[in-house]
């Protein structure tokens, strides 16, 4: 039987600065579809779902819903057109009740003589919760009293309130235990039986095989293929997700994964954050150690612990040279360590300060003479870095917020190079920067390695890990699941098996 088209997107493009998140994305969702949307981190899945759900606007392209032009201005607008989404991050509002969370933005529906009919609101919330099989959640309790899973279920209730024709589920199952997953699958089945549609985003390929009747694969913002149920296999999905070759000298050309025997840093039995547990590793002089995994694998927490930002719950981070324990960033910096945060604008740069102020920030002790730091010394150090890093700027007094993403990242690197850091912790060092700057960054990392510096490179991009690392450690659920040495034969398929 021919399925009826519910939503059709044509030529959807979306860029964030120099990064093309989506390029000419054509996707058709039909009634009765449970369409899986898969791809590596950064492939554009969440951007696409956010555009369909009204949280983002496309730069170009058109959408049609039920044959009519569809251009949602907000998520509420999309909801009113029967398109709802459960977001990847926590989407509930603290310090208000469950029913207020379900109806937030729609409270006017319960207005009676100017006042809220709270009894009616609670009773309708109870009915929705019952309908989705979560009657154990009380509508009048404060959301803060619920655990993480139940809060996600409240979001699901909010999404189901408008009886959506299209429900978008963006990597929600990772936050759900058995109870939540069962409930979610029941909703998906119901949507399917009512001839509605679900766009299901997940990294769990087994789950996608079980739940979806078709999958669309995105890679680097392009639609690669759509597989119908009878064409779907885990092997094929993986192959489509990662099918990409390393090109020319974009990454390191050599396959010599050697480094010195000298250990410069040891991580011993570290537990931190929600998932990282009993993790140990050693970093050698002149080594690029790649750390890979999914976003919630604990790898980002590892970077923060190594640099002393987060205090480990168990274990310790030791600098081998002088047996110093890294307790905080100050100890790390004084022992020539540097950290490039994943969140560049919030954690790595003072964006409202000048390039010079940012670059000299970690070197102030070195620039000091008789308790004074002269502007001349600051300028000399900054200009040297601007030249060697080819930072495109009007002057060293230009504000960092005025720079492009790639040049901002160059300033971050310059800060640690000016401080003569010998150990660098790089968390997603090429996130959100264009190909040209990426190539510069990779060349710089290679130079640093060759000059005996040691690098821990945390990355969500598998080609980057394979292309640059001497050794790769893969984390899943906070534990080491695989370790690989640099080799010509190393493929993304091999790594992804240990990640998912």
């Amino acid at each position, binding site marked *: 039987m021919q399925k009826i088209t519910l939503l059709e997107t044509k030529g959807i493009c979306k860029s964030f600065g120099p990064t093309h998140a989506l390029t000419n994305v054509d996707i058709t969702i039909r009634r009765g579809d449970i369409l899986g949307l898969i791809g590596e981190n950064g492939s554009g899945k969440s951007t696409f779902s956010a555009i369909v759900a009204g949280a983002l606007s496309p730069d170009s392209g058109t959408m049609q819903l039920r044959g009519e032009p569809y251009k949602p201005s*907000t998520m509420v607008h999309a909801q009113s057109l029967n398109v709802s989404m459960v977001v990847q991050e926590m989407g509930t509002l603290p310090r208000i009740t469950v029913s*207020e969370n379900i109806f937030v*933005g729609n409270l006017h529906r319960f207005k009676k003589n100017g006042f809220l009919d709270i009894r009616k609101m609670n009773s309708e919330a109870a009915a929705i919760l019952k309908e989705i099989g979560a009657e154990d959640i009380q509508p009048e309790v404060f959301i803060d009293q619920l655990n993480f899973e139940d809060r996600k279920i409240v979001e699901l209730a909010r999404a189901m309130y408008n009886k959506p024709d299209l429900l978008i589920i963006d990597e929600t199952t990772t936050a759900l235990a058995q109870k939540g997953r069962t409930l979610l699958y029941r909703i998906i089945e119901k949507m399917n039986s009512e001839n509605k549609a679900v766009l299901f985003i997940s990294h769990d390929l087994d789950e996608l095989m079980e739940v979806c009747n078709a999958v669309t694969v995105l890679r680097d913002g392009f639609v690669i293929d759509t597989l119908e149920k009878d064409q779907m296999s885990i092997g094929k999905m993986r192959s489509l997700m990662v099918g990409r070759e390393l090109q020319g000298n974009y990454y390191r050309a050599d396959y010599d994964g050697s480094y010195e025997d000298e250990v410069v840093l040891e991580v011993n039995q570290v537990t931190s954050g929600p998932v990282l547990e009993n993790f140990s590793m050693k970093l050698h002089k002149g080594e690029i150690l790649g750390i890979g995994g999914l976003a919630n694998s604990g790898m980002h927490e590892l970077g923060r612990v190594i640099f002393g930002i987060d205090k480990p719950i168990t274990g310790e981070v030791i600098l081998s040279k002088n047996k110093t324990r890294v307790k905080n960033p100050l100890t790390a910096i004084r022992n020539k360590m540097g950290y490039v945060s994943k969140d560049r604008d919030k954690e790595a740069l003072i964006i409202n300060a000048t390039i010079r102020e940012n670059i000299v920030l970690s070197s102030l002790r070195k620039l000091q003479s008789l308790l004074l730091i002269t502007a001349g010394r600051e300028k000399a150090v900054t200009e040297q870095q601007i030249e060697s890093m080819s930072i495109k700027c009007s002057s060293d007094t230009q504000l960092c917020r005025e720079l492009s993403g790639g040049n901002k990242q160059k300033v971050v690197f310059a800060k640690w190079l000016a401080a003569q850091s010998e150990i660098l912790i790089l968390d997603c060092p090429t996130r959100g920067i264009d190909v040209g700057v990426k190539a510069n960054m990779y060349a710089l990392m290679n130079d640093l390695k060759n000059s005996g510096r040691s690098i821990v490179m945390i990355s969500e991009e598998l080609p980057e890990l394979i292309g640059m690392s001497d050794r790769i450690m893969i984390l899943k659920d906070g534990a080491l699941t695989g370790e690989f040495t640099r080799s010509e034969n190393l493929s993304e398929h091999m790594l992804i098996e240990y990640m998912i």
Partner: protein
Amino acid sequence: MAKFMNTLLRTLKTIILPIIVYLAFSILSKGRFGQPAGMLTIARQSIMPIMVALAITCNMTIGMWDFSAGAVVYTAAIVGGNLALMTGTGIPGLIVILILIAVTLNTITGLLYNLFKVPSIVLTIGLMMVYEMIPTLLFKGGVLISGKMTHLALPPYCFIVFAVMFIIFYVVFNYTPFGHNVRALGSNQAIAANVGLNPATIKLVSFIFGGVFLGMAAVMDLSTKGMIRPPATMGSVSMIFDAMMGIFIAFFLQKYCNLAIGVVVGTFTMKMLNSGLVSMGLSTTVRDITTGLFLLILLCISANQGKFTEWRNNKEKARLANEKFTQANA
């Protein structure tokens, strides 16, 4: 039974702070503080700062500071008081005119906030200086009203005014879409905007709503004092000090009681603390230091109350991780 015990426990936790302050000063002042007549006076004196506190509660819940509130009270009292005298409209005229002036000024503040998009602290300090100049320009000598117009400051009228205004605030804050939207916006502005709330409109309405209470605060202030002179530059800040401190206490108490009740308990506690220190014969300097320390301790407890739970959770996590590590290496 469990529900009753829970309510009882929460009520006790809500009133424990004023009870401690009351008992402490009753003992330390050797009976000079805490007599029924004295407590009635403190209750009366608390009404004006409670009005100011209720006026800025919504703004502070959303995360906006309002340092212009005191200047609005002064301007409404002096300009509005003179207009009421000129028109001979008596107490009803006084109430209406003062509220209208305060609402107008707060509407201007809200509109400018949305227009300029500068931090509320910067905008309201600037506007405080502007508003403080208005009574000086129009009525240099201030305002002096007759005894007949001061009845609202006397019991039982002052308590009736308090009850009416408190009920209005309580109902609006807890039983209208506006109140719920304020709380949602205060929880997380990004998510609230994503689910369809309009932050600019809610913030503007919050200023307008606050204006009603500032107008009433001006009525109570003028009725109590009978005469008000224009403030010196930034002199109006002292008027909002007790109110802001009261709201900080209310934020601390809101896990045990409704925020509106917390505002009343908090502001009354601050007023009691001030009176208690006066009754001990302490100098202004010592009183200021004690008040500051009191608030500092309270905020420290409030800010760090999650630390103990976090420490306990981490301890348990460490135990489990160590157990797993030992098993794996056995």
